[in-house]
């Protein structure tokens, strides 16, 4: 599964994207796996209410299942326009 990071989430984690092998059932499970991995993930995911998630390029939420999902993206609330 590919994981993408944008804006300050990317800066805190230090890479724009990575490929992981995971058994996580939901986005929340995946976040917990990442937090357990290294401090930089714990720093980025300290407050998930400050984050948004997209699954296969559609906005989703942290309870969503990861069944069949190929690309997960984490980012702060968007500031377009």
């Amino acid at each position, binding site marked *: 599964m590919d994981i993408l990071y944008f*804006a300050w989430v990317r800066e805190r984690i230090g890479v724009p994207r990575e490929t992981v092998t995971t058994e996580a059932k939901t986005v929340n499970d995946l976040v917990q796996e990442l937090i357990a991995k290294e401090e930089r993930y714990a720093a980025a995911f300290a407050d998930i209410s400050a984050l948004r998630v*997209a699954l296969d390029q559609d906005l989703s939420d942290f309870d969503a299942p990861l069944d069949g999902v190929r690309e997960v993206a984490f980012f702060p*609330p*968007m*500031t*377009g*326009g």
Partner: protein
Amino acid sequence: MKIVVQEAPFNFAAEVEDFGQGRADMGAIVTFTGVVRDNDAGDLDAMEIEHYPGMTQKALEKIASDASARWDLGDVLIIHRYGRLEPGEKIMMVATSSPHRKDAFEAADFLMDYLKSRAPFWKKEHTGGDASWVDAKDSDEDALNRW
């Protein structure tokens, strides 16, 4: 419907001229242009705009389709830039056409509200050697409740 995501500047006048061509049934065209605004201290060096290439086009198409389903529109145009922009540069524009002005105005307003918080762009301000990400405002999210 025309959706463009690009780093290069766009020609506002040419885009508007082209947008209205060949539709004598459209009595109203509304346009909005977003410009990089200097901060109150007047020392903004640049605004850097990051986006999510795989998702941006899709998200903008959805916003434009939602507007077209809701209002009587002849056409919708969205252009949004990314990369490093200096104060005074145009960041983005939308245009809507409709037989009547009310639909064109409301649809343009709707597009702007959704572009602010549902299109995957992030702004970073560069000021005198410092850089900081622009936080989303609660009022931007609240604005969606109008619709």
